[in-house]
Every structure is written in C-alpha cells, then in structure tokens.
C-alpha cells in the first residue's frame, strides 16, 4: 500500500501572535511554526496502515521554518521518503498551497500513483479552503473528511473509514481506492520518537527538495485587515480565598433557583 501524506506548517499559538506593520498579516519575528495538528495525526495513521499492510509512506511538505525538524521526526518514526517543496512565496493561502502540491505531485517522479493520500482535515489557518478536499478535486478522487479510523478491506480495492458526525455519532463509509482522506485523529495518538532517533535521522537521511512551480493564479480572497479579537463579553471574575468563592457561587445559584 503506498500512502502519500501532505504536510503543512501553521503558526504555533502557544506563542503570542502579533500583528505585522501592514495590519493584514502576522509579524514574522515572534512567529514560530508548528506542524498542523491533524497533519501529525495523518502521519500517524499512515504509519499504522503501513505497519498493518506493508507498503511505503511518503511525506510531501511545503517548506517553512522548522519543517525540516518535522520531516526528520517523520522519517525517524518510519516514513520512507520525505520531499519538501522549496522557494515558496510568502503569504501562501491553503488554496495556493493545494495548487502547488497538485502540480508537484503530477510532475515529480514517484509521488503518484498513491493508493491513499492523507492530510489533516482542516488547519487553523485554512481561510480559503483545506488541502485535502482541494487535492481530491484536482485529482478527481473520492474524498471523506473528519476521518478517525481507516481499515483496509481484505480484497484490497477499498478502505472502510469512520467519520465523526455530531453528537458523538460516527458514520462508516466504504471508499474505493485510490482516495483522499482528511484525517481528524489517528487511531492512536501520534507515537513518541526519542530525540536521539530524530538526530540520527537528521544525520543519515535526506530530505529531497523540489522547487515550487510558479503560482497558477492569484488568490481569490483578499485580506483587508487582521486584528486581535475584540472580546465582547468577559466573565465577572470572583476573587478571594476558595471558601469565599464557593460561597459566592452558591449565592448566585440560589438566586437563579438552581439548587
């Protein structure tokens, strides 16, 4: 089974996000990038499938600060091949990224055909679309989003996937391969790989670099302004020792007839 995983970095929200001078984007100085959380789950799901059914896993990523670390970590976990697209324009939106990925996949050797293409179902900066459905459309392949489980059918031509629906309900689908899946969560949390193995991978493994093709079309959306959210409401904060706070809360509940 050949699996291709598409990876992208997003701003790390543990850091305070600051506005750039142009008022429309994030300030780069204080910005740290991190692998999109559901992309990390996509890698894990791919590795789980490889462990069960054999085959290869290739990671195709868009270059960003600290992407190398993420790719070497993926290689240390068991990904067979890591490819990075370099020379990207700053301010690339999800749709632009998907176009570049689609082009590279079509032209670069050995990336396609893949039985399964996995990517995170949605990233925190997917303003104008998400990678997974866009790739599915450009490759004209079946697509399921918010996938939390993937099982290969014994016959080999299909996979059974479980998608998260509202209210804790899940839906099961049978998808014909080759397919694109938007992964919400892998069946197990992403495995831990010791730093020693990542460092060893950084020394002994290679990340292939491919130049980005020129963007096909300008973005279809325009950001006019970026700002910190105006907090419309804020809770009345209760202060004091714990006993006092408990007392105040009991009063409030009593007032509202909730006891």
């Amino acid at each position: 089974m050949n699996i291709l995983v598409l990876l992208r970095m997003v701003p790390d929200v543990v850091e305070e996000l600051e506005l750039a001078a142009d008022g429309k984007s994030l300030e780069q100085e204080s910005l740290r990038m991190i692998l999109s959380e559901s992309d990390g789950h996509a890698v894990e799901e791919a590795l789980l499938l490889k462990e069960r059914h054999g085959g290869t896993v290739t990671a195709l990523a868009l270059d960003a600060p600290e992407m190398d670390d993420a790719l070497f970590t993926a290689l240390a976990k068991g990904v067979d091949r890591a490819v990075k697209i370099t020379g990207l324009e700053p301010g690339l939106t999800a749709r632009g990224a998907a176009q570049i990925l689609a082009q590279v996949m079509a032209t670069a050797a050995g990336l396609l055909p893949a039985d399964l293409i996995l990517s995170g179902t949605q990233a925190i900066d997917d303003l104008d679309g998400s990678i997974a459905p866009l790739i599915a459309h450009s490759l004209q392949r079946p697509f399921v989003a918010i996938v939390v489980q993937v099982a290969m059918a014994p016959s080999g031509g299909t996979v059974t996937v479980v998608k998260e629906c509202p209210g804790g309900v899940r839906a099961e689908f049978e998808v014909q391969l080759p397919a694109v899946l938007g992964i919400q969560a892998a069946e197990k949390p992403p495995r831990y790989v010791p730093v020693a193995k990542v460092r060893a991978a950084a020394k002994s493994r290679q990340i292939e670099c491919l130049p980005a093709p020129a963007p096909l079309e300008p973005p279809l959306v325009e950001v006019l302004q970026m700002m910190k959210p105006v907090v419309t409401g804020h809770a009345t904060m209760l202060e004091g020792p714990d006993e006092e706070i408990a007392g105040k809360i009991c009063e409030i509940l009593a007032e509202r007839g909730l006891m």
Partner: protein
Amino acid sequence: MAGNIWVLAEQWRGRLSEITYEVVALGSEVATALGVKLQVVLLGHKMKGLADTLGRADGVLYVDHPALEEPRVETQSAALAQLIQAQQPRCVLIPLTNVTLGVGTLVAAQLQVPEISFCQDLCVLEGKLQARCVLYGGKMEVLVTAVREPTVFGIWPGARPAEKGRAEQMPAVEEVAVTLPEALPVRFKRYIEPEAGDVDVTQQDVLVAVGRGIQSQDNIELAEELAQALGGAVCGSRPVIDQGWLPLSRQIGKSGAIVKPKLYVAAGISGAPEHVEGMKNAALIVAINTDPQAPIFNVAQYGTTADALDLLPLLTEGIRKAISKKAGPS
C-alpha cells in the same frame, strides 16, 4: 434567480440542525441589505416537510435524490454546484459543521470560485460582501473579501441567534432536479451510535464539565459529587474523552453534543472554539480555570482562577449545606 443569497440547510438524519437557523438569520440580514432574495437549498430524500420551519426565507430550493439521503460530501457538493451554475446566486452560505465540512471547498474548486471559511459575520459595505473570520483557533480575526462571485462562505456556529432564523411557516418550495452519478466511489454503510450512556447530556438542566485541567481520571469524582448535589450530570471536553476518562456520549462540542442547560460549570476547560460551540448557549456558565487568559472566560458569565481540584469539593459542600437548610430541620 441570479444575484440571490443562498443558504445551504444542514440536514442530517432527517432533521435540520440549529446552525441552519443561525445561518438563515445571517443570510436574511445580508439579503435585506442588498435588496435581494434569500433562498435556502435543501438537499435530501423525501424530506420536503423540513421546509416548514424555514419561513424566514423567500424560497426553498429542494433537491430530492436517493443519493442525498446520507451525508456524503461529494454528492452534496455535486448537487449544489449544479444548482449554482444554473441559477448563479451571489453567494452561498454553508454552515460549518462535521456534516458539511468539505462541501464548500469542493463546490468552490469545481466552479473555480472563491471560498471564505471560518466566518463569524458577514456584512455589506458599499455593495460588497465583507466577512469577519476567526483564525488560529480564535487568536486573530481577519476582514476578508472575495475577488469574484458567486462566493462560498463557510459560516462558523454562533454567527446569529438561531431563533432569529426560524419561522414556523412553509415558504415557496421549488423542486429542482439534478443528475448525480450512479455508482459512487464513496458508499455509506452505517451509523455507529455512541455507547448508550445512562445519561443524555442534551436533556440535563445542570452539567458539570471537566477538561484537561482536571489532571487525572480520579479527580472526575469531584465533578460527579458536585453534579449529584446539583441534580445534574458530568460531561467533558474532547481531550478528556480521548483519554478514555469519560465515554463518548459525554463529549460536548463540535464532534459531540450541543447542549443548552440552565447551568454549565466548566472546570479545567480552556475554552477552545470546538468546545465552546457545544455549550455557549447555556443559560448560566461558571468557569473555573487557573489560567486567567483562558478563552472560556469570554463566554462565561462568572469565572474564577481558583484551582478546580480545591474549589469543587468546597462547592459541593456549600450546596449540600444550603439544600439541607432549605429542607428545614428534620
């Protein structure tokens, strides 16, 4: 008709979800501002009757097809794309939930039109549509416009109160036919219901919710005791369910239940948007989180930075005392 505002109704398992009405309310405002009509697109099979609460819309475009009975993103987007091409609305507002995620993107890709996601608000400025979107898990907001139309807008829950979009009246329903491919590469098999919990969290008046701040499964007992004292039930945010500390039936949020209890006590919950979506309409929200910057405080009426592990037992005690006092000397 060309130039109208369209809303895709979120139909799931034969019912329209709350968020449909929120988006209808928003769409109605926009349509009025632009002086055009508001039409709701309803996709389903033998579900025409669902239109009887969509009275706020000027019309409903109903597509009936067996393939639309179950929620497959491709069939929905194929149907919607055909409609859009035929009728050229100005924009389509699609509620962003687990059911519809991907529909907007596929439609936009197919028709090569812009998609703007994470929208919390839409307004009209000088005849142009401007969206206010939330990015980075709520840390930043952006004002966005689209380069051309029709535009697909993905609307985040909470844009407008649902009551404003609901009217017990059947608008004019136009049945439209679409052609959908026969053998679809994605076949719906079945629904997997969450393990029948003894408790239906959506029916509770009081919910005590725990998040990662509860630190360990053992401490959930503290929440159980408080819930018991208040006559309610315990529920949790996604991380707690993922850890296996509470069953899936107790999950509140985007992938879990949407609840509207009279009282929601959020203990050790940070208030990530996916969770807030599930509980923001509770009548009274009391949040306990040691981080004063936790976003839960933006949605709660009362909050404290006390440690939940210390406060919960004190609360339970206080409530028990107050209740026994009310009961009078025995």
